[in-house]
């Protein structure tokens, strides 16, 4: 509708709602366009895009090692993506996944160091609980001002990422530093009972199962329960939620708690399954990449399983092309391109864009 005071060069008119076909088509086309953009960039820098992509694909999915590594990298993305999707469903822009991952890792490590001699069936659940609690409570901190004062959570969750990362830095450089670690910023290795079991001789660990089970549970919660119904209604229309008597403030707190807890589990699983200790910078930005993972599927918990695998593969494929002299930043670029095209596709689905031939600046 063109009722604004000014008319810009490009205007958007609302379209009828997108068809189900488009819901699948848009992510697929976005992936294609992102690859195309990447290809142009590669060609401009004198590389053969087809060759780079095939190396990348082979590196990620072509060998058993590549495939299993891609799955290993997908696990934290899956968990964090699920956590973020819960919050995003309610239009709570939790950008703090990274910090919640770090706090989850902190909580899990604390329990692992506290209970070195207990059996696995005590230690692992305790670590999961502690990781979830630490991540969840970390997310509740920005939820409270958001719920009761309307303070924008994008900024607060983002700021808390730095605090969490610095807190872990402090621990691994200070009180928790491994005395036998040649001064590296790492904690001592966890005991056997604090380590998640793996599948066969691969590095794929039980975090995968946790992720898949959680994806199904979260899917059911969102689409089949009263609780999930409230999340959807509040997310789509806070006015209608208030009208129906929903307590939005309380819901914000609970949903952020859940969102942070699941992200916290991502941190726990990464430590207990892969690094087996807390170390500085153990997450290369999983919490941020997970934002793209969640959006690519339009916040569908089951879709996140596939998207996480795709992004895990990109990371592993990125290592493979590095050996051919292609900077690993290509991967970040592809990921950024993906988000760009998904969000762009979203707008194209909802609106019809028309280019105005004139430079009308009407003030009437």
């Amino acid at each position, binding site marked *: 509708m063109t009722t604004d005071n000014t008319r810009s060069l490009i205007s958007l008119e609302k379209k009828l709602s997108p068809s189900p076909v488009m819901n699948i088509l848009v992510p697929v086309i976005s992936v294609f366009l992102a690859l195309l953009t990447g290809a142009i960039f590669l060609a401009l820098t004198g590389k053969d895009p087809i060759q780079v992509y095939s190396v990348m694909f082979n590196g990620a999915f072509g060998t058993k090692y590549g495939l299993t590594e891609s799955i290993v990298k997908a696990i934290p993305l899956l968990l964090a993506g699920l956590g973020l999707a819960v919050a995003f469903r309610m239009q709570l822009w939790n950008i703090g996944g990274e910090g919640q991952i770090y706090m989850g890792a902190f909580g899990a490590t604390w329990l692992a160091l506290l209970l070195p001699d207990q059996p696995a069936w005590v230690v692992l659940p305790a670590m999961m609980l502690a990781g979830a609690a630490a991540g969840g409570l970390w997310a509740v901190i920005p939820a409270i001002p958001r719920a009761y004062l309307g303070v924008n959570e994008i900024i607060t969750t983002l700021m808390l990422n730095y605090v969490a990362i610095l807190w872990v830095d402090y621990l691994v450089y200070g009180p928790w530093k491994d005395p036998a670690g040649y001064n590296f910023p790492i904690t001592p290795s966890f005991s056997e009972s604090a380590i998640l079991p793996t599948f066969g001789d691969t590095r794929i660990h039980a975090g995968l199962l946790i992720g898949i089970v959680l994806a199904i549970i979260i899917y059911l919660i969102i689409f089949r*329960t009263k609780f999930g119904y409230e999340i959807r209604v509040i997310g789509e229309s806070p006015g*209608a939620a208030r009208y129906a008597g929903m307590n939005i403030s309380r819901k914000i707190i609970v949903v952020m708690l859940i969102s942070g807890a699941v992200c916290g589990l991502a941190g726990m699983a990464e430590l207990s399954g892969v690094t087996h200790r807390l170390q500085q910078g153990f997450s290369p930005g999983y919490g941020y990449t997970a934002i793209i993972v969640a959006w690519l599927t339009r916040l569908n918990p089951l879709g996140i399983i596939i998207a996480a695998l795709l992004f895990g593969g990109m990371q592993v494929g990125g290592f493979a092309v590095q050996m051919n002299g292609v900077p690993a930043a290509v991967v970040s670029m592809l990921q950024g391109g993906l988000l760009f095209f998904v969000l762009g596709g979203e707008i194209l689905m909802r609106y019809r864009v028309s280019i105005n031939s004139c430079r009308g600046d009407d003030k009437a």
Partner: protein
Amino acid sequence: MQELLLKMKQITKKFPGVLANDNIKLSVKPGEIHMLLGENGSGKSTLMNILAGLYKPDIGEMYIKGSKVNFKSPRDAINAGVGMVHQHFKLVDNFTVAENIILGSAGTKLKLNAAQAEQDIKLLASKYGLAVDPAAKIWQLSVGEKQRVEILKALYKGSDLLILDEPTAVLTPQETRELFQNLRQMAQDGRGIVVITHKLQEVMDIADRVTVLRAGKAVATLNRDEITEKDLAWLMVGRDVVFQQQKFASQFGVKVLELNEVQAMNDNSRPALQGVTMDVKEGEIFGIAGVAGNGQRELAEVITGMRTCSSGSIYLDNKKITNLSPQKIIRQGVSHVPEDRMGTGLIPKLGSVDNIMLKGYRNSYARGPFLDYKKASADTDKLVSDFNIKLYDPSAPVSLLSGGNLQKLLLAREMSLKPLLLVAVYPVRGLDVGATETVHRLLLEQRARGTAILLISEDLDEIFKLSDRVGVIFEGQINGIINTEHADLEEIGLLMMGAKQTGDMPQ
């Protein structure tokens, strides 16, 4: 024959899913008031937005005073002498009247002399009886005054073709009469005036010619002497319309809703309700009449628990419900058809089943923590057929439904709760004649079942047709309560403008 001020030929404009204007022909002569009559959604605003340069037609030609024009922006239209007063005013609240009026013209000239401008505006205003103080800030003005500012703005820019989009929707009957007189005067000066309306009576009152739109087509253009109300209704709707709906006498029972000296703030923390005292009985429709913005919205919200009651008390069925949570009030049997259907009453992007569950998901549609989608689907199917809602896919977003079907869906849900009290705010706003009839019939049926109904409406005809008693709201107070049998349009109009009720109050 005099030269035509405007000629539009074959105007066609398509929006996704609708042909808003279909091969429309329209001409305006200097000195005439030309009414554009049509139901909601028939394409009136679209056609005039094309004329004002806001939309570009897909096909079609426009001639102003004989020469072909091709507007690329509203600026082009203004330069060609076309001025439009939109349904929603476009004024800057913190600027004065004079500043707002010269705002659009200032771009072309040097800094204007404010005193000179004020003088010019005063002159123009007094010439056409558009009383308004040029030095006043916009936020200080009433809706009627804001409209006058919009008209002055158009005149100041030298418009000789003036378009008004549903100008009477926000006015009292007296203000409407005044506006029509002023418009007549402007026409006598050789201007062409186009007035959009969906009210037959207004066409009968002042039209020199009328063009009737139906579903995007111009179905007829008639001269003053050819117009009859019956023909117009037929042309507008495409079938015969029953004008009077039978209202059976109802047995009023006990007081269901009672308000005592209720006060509440608006969103800007200014007093909106300043001591409302009233009651609604079982089987009664109590209408609230008033100029928009006198506390109607706040009244509905304070009763339904969505707004804090700062003093006074509210009783439902003799139980105090003042400041209970909306959830508790819903449970006590209060249904609510809110003013904002799409953002409040319904969730646009969710399907019909999800929308039907909105009030009952906690109890009737719950199985432990889970939702009983089977029951909800069955109930939705039943309501869809009972209320004759045109619905193709119960899981498709309700934003795809037409206004009438949306409102039926909302009413279906609220009535299925078997409420003691139904609060209905502007229940037919934006609906076409057919859907309006249905909604009115549903409200009367609900009344016959003994529900107490509080009907807030901006349409006096609607209030008269349905209500048993009318309370007139003015500046947050019920300024008078009138039994509709004794009611007189004139008196209600005066009360709406703040006059005190004289004589005894027939109750």
